[in-house]
């Protein structure tokens, strides 16, 4: 039986990769993908724990997280569309209207 900590380690690694992608990449969509990646890493951790203590609640939570993720992607991509339409580029750094 695979101990829970391995799963947690795995989800930790995946999560940090997501963070890395989130910070490095300049393409909005890739940033968005790394966010999805982080989200799945978290799901993995939750399921690992759920499995460990044998409660189904973990699965319900992941199920709901997925619906939220789906909604988020819908809206996120719409925003990226808007962003692209306005800025004619997908580079994250162009969105600097908030500059002081």
């Amino acid at each position: 039986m695979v101990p829970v900590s391995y799963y947690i380690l795995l989800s930790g690694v995946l999560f940090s990769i997501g963070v890395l992608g989130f910070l490095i990449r300049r393409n909005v969509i890739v940033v968005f993908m790394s966010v999805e990646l982080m989200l799945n890493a978290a799901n993995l951790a939750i399921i690992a724990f759920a499995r460990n203590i044998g409660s189904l609640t973990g699965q319900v939570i992941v199920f709901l997280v997925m619906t939220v993720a789906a909604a988020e992607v819908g809206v996120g991509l719409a925003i990226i569309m808007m962003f692209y339409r306005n800025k004619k580029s997908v580079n994250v750094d162009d969105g600097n209207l908030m500059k002081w």
Partner: protein
Amino acid sequence: MIDNIWLVPLLPLLGFLINGIFGRKLGKNLVSWIGCGSVGLSFLISVKVFFELLSLPAEQRIFEKIVFPWIYSGFFKVNISFLLDPLSGVMLLVVTGVGFLIHVYSVGYMYEDNGFSRFFSFLNLFIFSMLMLVLANNFLLLYLGWEAVGLCSYLLIGFWYEKKSASDAAKKAFIVNRIGDFGFALGVMLIFWTFGGLNYTEVFQQAPSILVAGGGLVTAITLLLFMGAVGKSAQIPLYVWLPDAMEGPTPVSALIHAATMVTAGVYMMARCHILYELAPFTLGLVAVIGAVTAIYTASIAMVQNDIKRVLAYSTISQLGYMFLGCGVGAFAAGIFHLMTHAFFKALLFLGAGSVMHALSGELNMQKMGGLKGKIPVTFWTVFAAVLAISGIPLFSGFFSKDEILWKAFSQGNLLLWLIGVICAGMTAFYMFRLLFLTFFGKSRVDESIKSHIHESPKIMTVPLMILAILSVLGGYVGIPKSLGGGNNFEHFLSSVFGEKEMIIHHSAFTEYIVMIISIGVALAGIFFAYRFYISKPELPKSLAEKYNFPYRVLLNKYYVDEFYFKIIVNPLLKFATFLWQFIDIRIIDGTANGLAGMVNWFGGIGRKIQTGYVRNYALGMVLGVILVLAYFILK
């Protein structure tokens, strides 16, 4: 009649109110009637009261009347109440008598002036405050009168307020008086601190028991009170305001700066003689200041050309005499000289006024001369006053001044006596110089005025004559024993000053010698004046060139005014500007605005974090997560 003594100050107050408020509408003669009438009536009442007082046996001659409670706070109880005893009786007579004559005189003198009613209301206010000062039975009411008199001199000196010099002089007078009053107020507080009350009777009864003779406390009290006297009676450090006070109309100078206000200091000294006798150091100081002031101002008077300035300096020097008298313990002699001085100095001022009136405002003695024939009455009255002040026998000045000199001599401080005698000589010199320059010699009056020199109207000359009679006969009240007189003036005041026989260890013979010396010196003064200004008029000019430096020093009053200005006034104003510009605006406002600026600056830094790059915010977020995790790890 003695019971409603409060009528005496009330009448001038009513006069002030009526003239002050309705003055414009009443018309000049009604105003003059009210003005003079109120003072005249209070003079009559005070004469009646004086004689009532005389009729009482010596030790009962003290009468107190409480009018209404003034300030009650805890055990500090002071009420408006009057004290009548021989000392205040004499002062009462002097103030109201001389005051009345001056009122009558100024009706004529000020007739053309459009501030006529305002002038009379202020004069009445002055008489009222002087009476409050004289009749007060506690130190606080004395202080009230003290400052109110200062206010009236401010109002009257600055009467012609258009003239900058007049309003400057008024301001200067008030502020210098205020400096004196500062010391006086502290003295009054110290008295309250030691005795727990301010009533004369209380304080003077407990004084010997509570205060240790010559101790620090009594010296402090007396010194502080003396500081007030110095301010009010223009002695050495604080005399600068009196010569400038000549800016006011002449009757004002006569009333305030000759007869009454300036003598308030001497009256206060006489009133607190019990305290002063307990503080020998202060007495010595008073005598020294008196003598030094006398000779110092006499020297200045000798070279002044403005007739009123000469009289002003001579007033200060005569006051010096009175303080000398008090200083050597002869309070009665001081008061006696005060009374006689009031008569002849008022006469001199009024005479000068009528001379000015005749020469339509000319003040400089160098532009006068030969008026003897043209204004005879003024001449003879002024001549009588000049004789009196120079201490010629048979005239009042002689008796009172000689009394002081004799008391100084008999008390053993010969130096002071010597200064006094020299000063007497100087007095004779400058008074006769004044007489010769104005009335004798060839007339240096310029043509335009010469034509219509006229004798002043009757309303002005009658008071002159009365004052002349007084200044001649005034002396006979206090003829010293050695000359066969009963010296009943001193006797009369003895109930106030106590019947202490001066330890006369000199025989009557030495008294005669002293008297002869002073007469001799006076005659010498007259002779010099005669030689300088009548026989050889060009002599003063040659002397002036030869000793040019001392002459110029004397002429500019030892540059004391400039000295005060440079040492005290300018640094104070500079310091004040420094305080305002630097401390107030730069430092305190600076910190307040600086604080605001700092908050603004911090805001600026904070703002820079918003770089606008989305990824920076991402970095911020991740950093936040890391820190939170680190916190949990390290906890």
